[in-house]
């Protein structure tokens, strides 16, 4: 059971841009496939940081903002670990099955 703060955004760093819809993103040390339709206008590059909400990149953010947000989230351990757990359990956002995505 996990209750998440719905408006939470978690930062992740792009490791690989798959196509115009998806990128592989390092989120809390784990690789996840994140939908990028809403951010970056097709110009995303590896190394850039994203603010992620329910599997979608909502905005491109700078590294300082990403690190500050991560530090905050780590302090809110319960909320953050639940969010990471929910993301880990998501079928669509597994980095391994890049082909199998709606």
């Amino acid at each position, binding site marked *: 059971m996990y209750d*998440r703060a719905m408006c939470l955004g978690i930062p992740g760093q792009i490791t690989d841009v798959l196509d115009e819809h998806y990128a592989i993103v390092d989120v809390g040390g784990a690789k996840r496939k994140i*939908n990028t339709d*809403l951010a970056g206008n097709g110009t995303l590059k590896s190394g850039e940081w994203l603010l992620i*909400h329910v*599997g*979608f990149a*909502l905005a491109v953010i700078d590294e300082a903002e990403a690190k500050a947000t991560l530090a905050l989230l780590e302090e809110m351990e319960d909320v953050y670990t639940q969010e990471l757990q929910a*993301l880990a359990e998501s079928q669509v956002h597994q980095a391994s099955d890049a082909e199998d995505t709606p």
Partner: protein
Amino acid sequence: MKYVDEYREQTKAAALSEKIREITPLDSHYKIMEICGGHTHTIYKYGIESYLPDNIHLVHGPGCPVCVIPLGRVDDAIAISLQDVIFTCFGDMIRVPGNKRSLGDAKAQGADVRIVYSPLDALHIAEQNPSRQVVFLAIGFETTAPATAIALKRAKAMRISNFSVFCNHVTIIPPLVAILDSENVEIDAFIGPGHVAAVTGSRIFAQITETYATPVVVSGFEPLDVLQSVYMLVKQFHEGVRKVENQYSRVVSYGGNPVALRVMEETMEVRPYFEWRGLGTISNSGLKINSEYADFDAENRFSIPGTEVKEPRACQCGQVLQGKIKPYECKVFGKACTPEKPIGTCMVSAEGACAAYYNYGRFMEINAKLVKSTK
């Protein structure tokens, strides 16, 4: 390193606290509403109120998506889940009580209710189960609605005809207007929701300052962000101005996220009215699937009771969500209503004001009393 940072943060917080005290007149009272549940969480977790003078009161607003879902819509969701479908929802919704039971109870009784992280997970389940109907319970403000919109667009493009959305998305401005219009509520200023504004842009709050002369500062979620936003609001009072300011310009722009706004526009339309928990029916406050995507609207595909359900008399979530009372002033808070056995939605969601207060704030209250009693 951590301790150095912590020390620096505390020094900055103390400095902001001092600046706020300097410009807050002793004879005035300011009631500042933080709209977003994420801010509520930060305020209680970090004890932000202890950095503020006694005449600045923080009250909690209607920006927790789970908290504002009315009982009737929970019952509608349960009714759909019992129609031989795979019913998908965010984890937050599973324990929310309807009139008699929750989606979790329906699951225990045999309904195929599954928790998903993202609307795309629901779409994926539909793809994997072509012989079953798959419904996604969409909730949330403008932060989350674009994700649902993308799922709808992909479902249409990929012709996944067994997928539909039970849409309960809401928008942020109408409940604020309803609160400002209601009697016996005096809100002096708003701390604006950072991630809603990442989508809408800070510009949507202009109507609040223009119509009601109530200042809004869009804020980030770190403790220093919230403190700085309070300072910016008090400074507006001090200088006699009323405007929208953006403390969270690291993420939020004036115009918002144009792609997110466009996909919402392409898939959804404003409902003439929508019921909110504790706030009643509010005009133009909810979003429904538009006619172009009507095939993916669960409200067209399934039979939905749509009955209005009265809220439990003991529950004062409505007053909490309007900033009329603090969580601990509710009669059942911490007694009949706890996170383990919630009566009201504000106690269910991690970002609900009552749950946040239960988890962090009540200890501050006890500490504050101890400090006062030893003086």
